[in-house]
């Protein structure tokens, strides 16, 4: 579905991604883990068009993304739930979700999707007329994910959903994400710092460090890998 090949991206003179190759097949849940500064956000930025890669390719269902401007990519069925939530703070929860449904498919499925989101995240139904900027971190994350789902996506990109959230909330969020994948058979590409939470529900995992892909495989194998502790904690 999503095929990234030998992607290299620079920020100025600094190389943020070095020959990274990732693949997400239909119905798969793929996780990318790695410490801060590993290039995870740059990867997502490259996919959604905020940053232009130096070399390599990104194709989605056969379409070359690199020739498509950022605002068109959502309409292909790529839904990006950004790092740090990035809700519309001065819009209500309902309005935030409505904005998520800005694609053609999203508009067609609006009522069904709205129901689905409120079932998945009941607290949002309670808070539907509250300004998103006044919600707690966990609630905002839910809004962001629900907003991502409102476009009836083919592939959901989740960018560090745990960031800045308390552990209990993180557990809850990941439990919902797992449910999403299992019940709706939604294809998900997840990027995370928290290794175990990310590896638990996924089908395939990649480890990114200093812009390079240092490991890939089924989650059971990755978890046992000592190299991860090294990458994260700088241990020898």
């Amino acid at each position, binding site marked *: 579905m999503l095929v990234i090949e030998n992607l290299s991206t620079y920020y100025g003179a600094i190389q943020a991604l070095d020959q990274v190759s990732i693949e997400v097949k239909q119905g798969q849940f793929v996780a990318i883990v790695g410490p801060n500064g590993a290039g995870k956000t740059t990867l997502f930025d490259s996919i*959604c068009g*905020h940053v232009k890669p130096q070399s390599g390719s990104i194709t989605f269902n056969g379409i070359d993304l690199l020739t498509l401007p950022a605002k068109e*990519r959502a*309409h292909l069925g790529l839904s990006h739930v950004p790092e740090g939530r990035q809700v519309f703070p001065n819009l209500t929860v309902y*309005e935030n979700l409505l*904005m998520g449904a*800005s694609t053609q498919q999203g508009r067609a499925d609006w009522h069904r999707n709205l129901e689905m989101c409120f079932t998945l995240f009941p607290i949002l139904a309670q808070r539907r007329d509250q300004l998103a900027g006044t919600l707690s971190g966990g609630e905002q994350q839910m809004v962001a994910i629900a907003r991502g789902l409102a*476009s009836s996506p083919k592939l959901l990109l989740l960018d560090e959903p745990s960031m800045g959230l308390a552990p209990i909330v993180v557990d809850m969020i990941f439990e919902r994400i797992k449910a999403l994948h299992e019940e709706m058979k939604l294809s998900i590409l997840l990027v995370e710092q928290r290794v175990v939470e990310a590896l638990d529900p996924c089908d395939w995992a990649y480890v990114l460090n200093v812009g390079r892909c240092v490991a890939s495989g089924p989650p059971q194998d990755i978890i046992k890998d000592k190299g991860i502790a090294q990458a994260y904690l700088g241990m020898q």
Partner: protein
Amino acid sequence: MYIVIENLLQRLVTGIMVGSIYGLLCTGLGMIFGVIRVINFAQGELMMLGMYATMFLGGLLALWLSVGSAAGAYLAIFVVAAALGGVGWMIQKYLISHVSGFKASQSDNQGHFAQLILTLGLSLVISNGALILFGSSPRTVQSPLASSSVTIGPFSEGDIMIFLNQARGIGCLVAIAVSIVLYLIVQKTRLGITMRAAADNPKAATLMGIDIEKSYATAFAIGTAATAIAGGLIAMYYPFHPYTGFEFVIIMYAGVVLGGMGSMLGAFWGGFTMGLVQQLSTYFLPFQLQNATIFVLFLVVVLLRPQGLFGKNVERA
């Protein structure tokens, strides 16, 4: 004694009427300055163009459609507003977007200064261009409404009578109606919500597939149209000339700042207050100083409470 009350009441009533029209005026700028955070110094000049266009078109329409000059004028106001909205759309899309955004923030100034200066230049071109085309003598939109009034009263043993100038009165009603429509568009329709989203978080909006450039241009167009309508209404009772724009641009900015950034409702009340203050000041102050109250109020607001009455975030030292 009764004369004092009558004078005050008269000014209050006029203030409410004028205030409503100014409210619409500021709502227009409020959309542009308050919602999409674009500084348009030429807003007043666009209004002025609207006034002249209404005057010319109003006469023509009255002739073609065989209606009274007033009806022709009101019709013209809306036609002109639509046209100016289109002009506004192009200004944002082809001029302002080139100097704002991420590109401009790389230079020493922020995009805002570039917008400020670009639109300053635009306002100079438009106002002086108008001077060349139309001459400097003041004009009005011809209609009998400006000189006819409806009386309220008599009250209080027949000593107090209030006059409602018809041009102002109808203008007030139209202004309120249009403001309500605008408010509904921005708050309730998908178009309006999309505009607010694009202004609130442009990066996230792009992720949703929203075309933020188009949103900004639409917001600019609507804001300009609103200002044009208000301008047309004002032109029905107040003479205008090529430099009228500057006179009103301060009222507009003062009103928006008073009402609070990002709040269209606030912009309306800010404008309303400006109108009210202006009319009330005619009681206390000599003619030349009346407009000074607007400026003083502007300074006071911007210095003491820059977030305004309803505002959210603000740029302050």
